[in-house]
C-alpha cells in the first residue's frame, strides 16, 4: 500500500470564509499534520485556477488523498471530485470540509471560527487514510417521464418533453386537466382570455401521441431511484367507459341529481351527479360522482343516464385500477390551493353574504361561469361599491408568513373587470404594499389608477354588517385605517372580495413524503438550491415546477415548467446515469444469518440466501442508508464511503483539538 499523501486546500471564498477564519494560520497548521504533504490556500478554489492547483499537485507531487476546506459539499463536491478524477485520482479519495455554512457563516467570533475550522478540517484529515477508491455505479435510464399534476405547469412540461419524442405520463387528480388557470376569466396584465390561451394547450396535450393522459388518477407509491422509478398510479373509477364515451353530455341532461355544488364553479354553480367539470374539459369524458349518484349510493334510480347514453358507456360496476409505470424522471407540478379565509373570522367569510374569495370572483366574472359573466350580488343586483382586500392569509404570522406574489396583480385585474362591466361602480383596493414587479405590471397599476379605482393603503381591520349611518344600511362595511391619511375609514361596500393568498396543497406534505423529498417551512416543495437548482429536489431525478414550489404567476410557471422539462430531458436523454457507490456490502464469511439486516432494510435490498445461510445485498436496490450496518450485532454489513473506521477517524480528528 502506497503511503498516504494528503493535500489540503483551504478556500477563502472571497471574504465569506477568510473574513472569519484565519486562513493562513489554519493552512500553516494543516501543513504540520501527519500525512499532509502540501497545504495551500486560495481565494476561490472552485475557480479554474483553484481546481488546477489540485490537479497539478496530484500529478506532480503524487498526492493521493485530498481535502478541500470550503463550502458545503452539496455545492461543490461534484466540482472537486471531477477535478480529482480528471487528474487521475479516484474521486472518492477527496473529502470536503464544510468551513463556510457550518463555520464561518454561523460563528460570531473570529478566533472561535478559526478553531472550529481546524476541528472540522482535522476530522477529514484523519478520515482520508481510511477512504477507499470507489467507482460510481452506472445504471440504465428509462427514457419515459412522469408529470404529476395537469395544470398549466404540468401541461407545459409534458408538451415540451413530448416534442423531443419522449414518452410522458401526465397524471391529474381531477377528471380534467387545466388546473386553476382553466377557472380564470382574464389574465393580468395583458387581459388575454385565460381559456383562449390555455385550451389549445390542453387539447394538444390530450391528442399528443407521446402523452398518455391519466386523468382522475393519483400516485400511490413511488419506488426506485434516478433513471429507474417505479410508480403505482390509482386510476379512480369514473363509472364511465372512457373509450366509448364521446363527451356528448346527453347523460348530464338526463341525470336527476341536479344540485351538486360545482367544484369548478367554487360551489357557486350547480352540476349533476354525472358530470363534465367544464365544457372544454380534457379528456372530454363524463364522470360519475360516487358520493352523489343515487345508484352508486344504493338508492333507487331509474338510471336515465344509461338510457340517454348512445354508446352505452356507463358502467356502474367499474372499479379503481392500480397501474404500474416505470419512468426515468418525474416532474411534480401539483399546484396550490387558495387559502381558505374562513379562520379569518373578522372578514366574515361564510358568515355574511357577498363576502367572496378571489377564485369565486373569477367564476363570477367568467362568461362561462354561474352568472354568465355578469358581476352581480347574491340577489342578482349589480354592486354599487366593491372592496378588494389584499393580503388575506398572506404576510401574516397568524396564518402564512409568505407573500403570495400574485394577489396584488389579480386584484388589479378584478378592479379593471368591474370597471369594464360596471363603470359607475366604486372600487376600493385595500393594500399594504402594491407589488407590481413583473413585465408590464407597474404600467397596469397606473392604468387602474387612471381608471378611477380608489387605492387605500391599509390592511382591512374587519368586515361588518352593522350600519351606523343611512349610507351603510343593508350593506357591508369595511373598517380600515387609511395609513396615508392616518384616519380610520368605514367603507360601505355591496361586495367584498378577499384576495386570498396561495397555500400549499393540503396533501403537499404527504405527497412530498411519497416521492421522498421535503417541504419548506411554508409548506411548499423544497427545491434543491434556491438560486441555482430551483426546479430540482434533493431526490435525483425528481423535478418541481409551478406553484407547488412557491406562488408564482403564469409566465413564471410556464418558464419553470420548461426548465423542469429540460432538467428531466438532460437525464432521460442519456442511456445510463451514474449513482453514488455508497452502498452496503456483506462479507459472507462473517455473516451468521440472523436476518436482522433483512428485516430493517427499508428498500428490501437485503435478501437471505437459504443455500449459503447468509444475507446478501442487492446492490442495485440498495440506496445507501446504512441502517443495516447499525442494526447488525456483529457489524458485518459495511457501507462503502461510511465505514465505521472512517466515522471513528472523523470523531478522533474532530476531538483531537
Amino acid at each position, binding site marked *: 500500500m502506497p503511503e498516504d499523501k494528503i493535500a489540503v486546500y483551504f478556500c477563502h471564498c472571497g471574504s465569506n470564509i477568510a473574513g472569519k477564519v484565519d486562513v493562513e494560520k489554519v493552512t500553516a497548521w494543516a501543513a504540520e499534520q501527519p500525512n499532509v504533504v502540501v497545504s495551500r490556500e486560495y481565494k476561490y478554489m472552485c475557480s479554474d485556477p483553484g481546481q488546477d492547483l489540485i490537479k497539478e499537485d496530484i500529478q506532480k507531487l503524487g498526492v493521493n488523498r485530498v481535502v478541500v476546506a470550503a463550502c*458545503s*459539499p*452539496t455545492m461543490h463536491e461534484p466540482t472537486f471530485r471531477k477535478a480529482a478524477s480528471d487528474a487521475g485520482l479516484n474521486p472518492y479519495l477527496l473529502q470536503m470540509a*464544510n468551513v*463556510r*455554512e*457550518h*463555520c464561518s*457563516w*454561523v*460563528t*460570531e*467570533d473570529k*478566533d*472561535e*471560527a478559526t*478553531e*472550529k475550522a481546524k*476541528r*472540522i478540517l482535522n*476530522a477529514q484529515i484523519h478520515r482520508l487514510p481510511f477512504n477507499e477508491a470507489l467507482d460510481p455505479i452506472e445504471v440504465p435510464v428509462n427514457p419515459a417521464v412522469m408529470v404529476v399534476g395537469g395544470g398549466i405547469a404540468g401541461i407545459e412540461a409534458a408538451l415540451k418533453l413530448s416534442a423531443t419524442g419522449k414518452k410522458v405520463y401526465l397524471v391529474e387528480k381531477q377528471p380534467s386537466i387545466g388546473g386553476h388557470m382553466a377557472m380564470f376569466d382574464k389574465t393580468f396584465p395583458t387581459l388575454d382570455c385565460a381559456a383562449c390561451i390555455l385550451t389549445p394547450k390542453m387539447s394538444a396535450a390530450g391528442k399528443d401521441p407521446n402523452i398518455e393522459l391519466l386523468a382522475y388518477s393519483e400516485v400511490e407509491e413511488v419506488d426506485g431511484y434516478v433513471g429507474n422509478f417505479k410508480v403505482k398510479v390509482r386510476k379512480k373509477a369514473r363509472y364511465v367507459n372512457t373509450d366509448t364515451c364521446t363527451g356528448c353530455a346527453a347523460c348530464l341532461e338526463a341525470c336527476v341529481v341536479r344540485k351538486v355544488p360545482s367544484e369548478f364553479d367554487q360551489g357557486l354553480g350547480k352540476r349533476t351527479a354525472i358530470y363534465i367539470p367544464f365544457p372544454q374539459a380534457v379528456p372530454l369524458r363524463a364522470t360519475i360522482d360516487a358520493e352523489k349518484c343515487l345508484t352508486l349510493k344504493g338508492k333507487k334510480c331509474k338510471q336515465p343516464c344509461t338510457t340517454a347514453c348512445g354508446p352505452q358507456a356507463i358502467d356502474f360496476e367499474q372499479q379503481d385500477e392500480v397501474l404500474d409505470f416505470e419512468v426515468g424522471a418525474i416532474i411534480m407540478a401539483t399546484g396550490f390551493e387558495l387559502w381558505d379565509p374562513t379562520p379569518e373570522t373578522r372578514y366574515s367569510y361564510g358568515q355574511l353574504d357577498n363576502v367572496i374569495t378571489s377564485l369565486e370572483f373569477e367564476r363570477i366574472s367568467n362568461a362561462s361561469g354561474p352568472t354568465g359573466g355578469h358581476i352581480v350580488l347574491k340577489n342578482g343586483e349589480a354592486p354599487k361599491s366593491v372592496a378588494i382586500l389584499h393580503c388575506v392569509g398572506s404576510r401574516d404570522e397568524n396564518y402564512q408568513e409568505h407573500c403570495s406574489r400574485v394577489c396584488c396583480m389579480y386584484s388589479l385585474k378584478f378592479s379593471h373587470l368591474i370597471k369594464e362591466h360596471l363603470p359607475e361602480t366604486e372600487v376600493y383596493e385595500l393594500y399594504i404594499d402594491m407589488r407590481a414587479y413583473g413585465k408590464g405590471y407597474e404600467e397596469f397599476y397606473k392604468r387602474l389608477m387612471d381608471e378611477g379605482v380608489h387605492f387605500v393603503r391599509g390592511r382591512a381591520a374587519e368586515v361588518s354588517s352593522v350600519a351606523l349611518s343611512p349610507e351603510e344600511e343593508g350593506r357591508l362595511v369595511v373598517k380600515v385605517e387609511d395609513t396615508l391619511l392616518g384616519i380610520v375609514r368605514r367603507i360601505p361596500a355591496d361586495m367584498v372580495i378577499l384576495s386570498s393568498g396561495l397555500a400549499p396543497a393540503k396533501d403537499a*406534505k*404527504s405527497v*412530498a*413524503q411519497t416521492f*421522498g423529498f*421535503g*417541504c*419548506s*417551512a411554508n409548506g411548499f416543495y*423544497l427545491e434543491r438550491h434556491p438560486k441555482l437548482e430551483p426546479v430540482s429536489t*434533493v*431526490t435525483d431525478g425528481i423535478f418541481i415546477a409551478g406553484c407547488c414550489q412557491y406562488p408564482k404567476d403564469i409566465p413564471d410557471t410556464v418558464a419553470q415548467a420548461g426548465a423542469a422539462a429540460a432538467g428531466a430531458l438532460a437525464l432521460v436523454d442519456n442511456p445510463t446515469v451514474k449513482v453514488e457507490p*455508497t452502498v452496503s456490502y456483506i462479507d459472507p464469511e462473517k455473516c451468521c444469518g440472523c436476518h436482522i439486516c433483512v428485516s*430493517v432494510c*427499508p*428498500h428490501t435490498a437485503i435478501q437471505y440466501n437459504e443455500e449459503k445461510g447468509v444475507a446478501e445485498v442487492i446492490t442495485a436496490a440498495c*440506496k*445507501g*442508508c*446504512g*441502517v443495516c*450496518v*447499525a*442494526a*447488525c*450485532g456483529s*457489524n458485518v454489513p459495511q*457501507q462503502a464511503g*461510511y465505514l*465505521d473506521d472512517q*466515522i*471513528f477517524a*472523523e*470523531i*478522533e480528528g*474532530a*476531538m*483531537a483539538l
Partner: protein
Amino acid sequence: MSDQFEPRLIGFLCRWCSYNGADLAGTARLKYPPNMVPIKTNCSGRIDPTHILKAFKEGADGVLIAGCHPGDCHYINGNYRTAGRYPLMEKLLEQMGLEHGRVRLEWVSAAEGEKFQHVVTEFTEQIRALGPLGWGEQFHDESAESEEATKEAVPV
C-alpha cells in the same frame, strides 16, 4: 473570552435533512456557538452506539443526533430505526454512568435552519450546565487492555 466551561460536542447529521438544515442556517447567517463539529452520514439510522461511545471516549461532553422528521426520511423509515434505537442507547449510556441529557436526538428538516440554530445553541448550554464529562481522560489513562475490554463490552 470568559473562562467558562466550553463543552466539546459532536453532531451526527443525516445528509438529506439535518445537514441541509445546518447549511441553511449558514446561508441565512444564523449564529450559534462553535462547540459542535458536525459529522455527516447518509441517514441518522446509520448511527450506532459505538459511534456515540467513541465520541465520549475521545473526550466529547455531549453528542447530538439529528435526522429527518418522522415520515420525511429519504430512506422511507431509517429515522424510525433511529428513534427506536435511541431509548436503548440512552439506557445503555445511563448504565455506564452517563447522566441524562448528554445525548440528544432531534428532527431537523432541510428547511429548518432556525431550528438547527436553536437546537445547537440550546444543546451547548445544556451541556455547559452539566459540566465536563471527562471520559476521554479516563480512557486515555487506562491501559490498552481495558480499552479493548470496553470495546468488547459494547453491545449493539
